[in-house]
């Protein structure tokens, strides 16, 4: 099911949580809404679900305007951040709930409901736990029950709010792969919310980066990581180093020294240079490059992280260099980013 969000605005007590957000989600896609807390990602997810309604704008499921439909009519599978499992019901009854509350004509028989719930529990690898109560399960198991329960209603769209937020690192990684697996098997259009960029980049077909109630960028993990379209996205995704530069004739200058880097079409004036600390090459100190003095040098597992003072000791940047490089304190290093972005201002 294709989902379209058109110019949506949502306010809570006059405070705008979403400001004019538009997004097209393709059928069968796995999409991550990524952003810091307060960026509006959960609000957007709840609007798609129909748990909240937009003040302005519309949400389409396929060609149908779903804006005025309640969550009940939209037929979405929603997995809540804290799972919201029904604590007084056994796992099996939790999973079968969506079928049990159907209208008489559409409701499968009791035996059929039980059979399908068992099938789903098998699918999420929880066979044998059907008689347990939610408080007798681990966090990861609860997460699986919540997903099986959402899948039981054969939803048009699967929505997950911070699906791995409450789990420890090991279980998180495991469940992440597993969710990708489930998505590939069922082919549901899936949207999940996360503040963990690693999770978003690893799992999603496309990532929607949000901040302060707006969508900053939408793209594949590669696009988001390699060509961020704003300083905000660049510094939010992955490690980043930044330097204030001036631009003259399409070339970058730092404290009047040329850096040998192209301005990539940014007009002359002040600008900001962004690059990844690991995406640099060390060059001879005589070349036109960024030259700095080593202030801190840290050995980590595979690389050496070096903090440099550049531009007359006014700025500090971090780069990663090979471990065999003799980066002693106060020594001078020249480097050039292999990939970089320039933003005006």
């Amino acid at each position, binding site marked *: 099911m294709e989902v379209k969000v058109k110019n949506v605005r949502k306010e809570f007590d006059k405070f705008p949580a979403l400001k004019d957000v538009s997004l097209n989600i393709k059928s069968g896609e796995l999409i991550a809404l990524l952003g810091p807390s307060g960026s509006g990602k959960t609000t957007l997810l709840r609007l798609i679900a129909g*748990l909240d309604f937009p003040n302005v704008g519309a949400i389409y499921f396929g060609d149908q305007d779903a804006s005025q439909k309640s969550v009940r009519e939209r037929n979405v599978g929603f997995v809540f951040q*804290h799972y*919201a499992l029904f*604590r007084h019901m056994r796992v099996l009854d939790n999973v079968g709930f969506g079928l049990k509350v159907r209208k008489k004509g559409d409701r499968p028989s009791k035996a059929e409901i039980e059979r399908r719930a068992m099938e789903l529990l098998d699918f999420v690898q929880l066979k044998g736990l059907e008689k347990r109560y939610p408080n007798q399960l681990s966090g990861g198991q609860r997460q699986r029950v919540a997903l099986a329960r*959402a899948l039981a*209603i054969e939803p048009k769209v699967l929505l997950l709010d911070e699906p791995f937020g409450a789990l420890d690192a090991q279980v998180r990684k495991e469940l992440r792969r597993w969710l990708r697996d489930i998505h590939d098997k069922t082919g549901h259009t899936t949207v999940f919310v996360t503040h963990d960029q690693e999770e978003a980049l690893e799992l999603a077909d496309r990532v929607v980066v949000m901040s302060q109630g707006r969508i900053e960028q939408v793209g594949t993990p590669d696009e988001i990581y390699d060509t961020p379209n704003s300083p905000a996205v660049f510094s939010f995704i992955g490690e980043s180093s930044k330097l204030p530069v001036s631009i003259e004739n399409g070339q970058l200058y730092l404290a009047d020294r040329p850096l040998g880097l192209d301005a990539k079409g940014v007009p002359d004036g002040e600008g900001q240079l962004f690059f990844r600390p690991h995406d640099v090459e060390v060059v001879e100190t005589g070349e036109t490059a960024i030259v700095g003095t080593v202030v801190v040098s840290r050995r980590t597992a595979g690389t050496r992280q070096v903090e440099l003072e550049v531009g007359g000791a006014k700025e500090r940047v971090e780069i990663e260099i090979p471990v065999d490089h003799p980066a002693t304190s106060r020594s001078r290093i020249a480097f050039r980013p292999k990939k970089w972005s320039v933003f005006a201002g």
Partner: protein
Amino acid sequence: MGRADFRNPVSESRRAKWITIFVAGVFLALVLFIPLVAVFVEAFRLGWGAVLAAITQPDALAAIRLTLLVAAISVPLNMVFGVAAAWAIAKYEFKGKAFLTTLIDLPFSVSPVIAGLVYVLLFGTGSFLGPIFNSAGMQILFAVPGVVLATMFVTFPFVARELIPLMEDQGTGDEEAAISLGASGWQTFWRVTLPNIKWGLLYGVLLSNARAMGEFGAVSVVSGRLRGETVTMPLHIEILYNEYNFAAAFAVAALLALLALVTLVLKALLERVYGRDHAGAVRH
């Protein structure tokens, strides 16, 4: 393991502990336990026969019937109103919410006598509403409806007060989950909300019931004390006592106390189950 274990010798904190327990124990014995025992001792002074005679006397039977009837009407109604009020306060945001919360507490802070007087003013002969009901052939004041109204006023807060913190703590997540799975509002209430609050609700109902059967002040004002008609058990006890019929007064009092004790035992049993249930109900 408290910090006190290795800070100071235990002697002092132990002494403090015993003193506290002793004070509380003596106080409870003097104020609660001895009088309660006295009621039963006094009641059975003339033997089983006298107690039975006092209880089966027609006016006493009428009082027992009326008390049970009033409880049977007011408790279920308060249960419905209490759940509705708690639901509104715990799950919705609206203007005047703080005011409504205060209003629910009003019967706790107002003297029951005043509650009774309010109904006299509302439905009395000189009032606006009284003649309307009278001309419709309905007697409110000095009749069973008045007694029920006064009892409801006094017992209203118990269910709501019990449920509000519970429902606020549980939030709306479970309800949202149920609706997203296709449940109607009604199904959500019966299958999700009610099971989540059932122990708290039962507890509130028991407290409400105990108070409904024992209420004196408010009922005394509106009842008119027509023997065999508008006299509840507490009123009957007072009438007997004022007539120097101490044996009968204590016999009926013992029965009323017994009803309260049964309620308390039920409540204690519930707390056990509820406590166990609640441990598993804490949000994960």
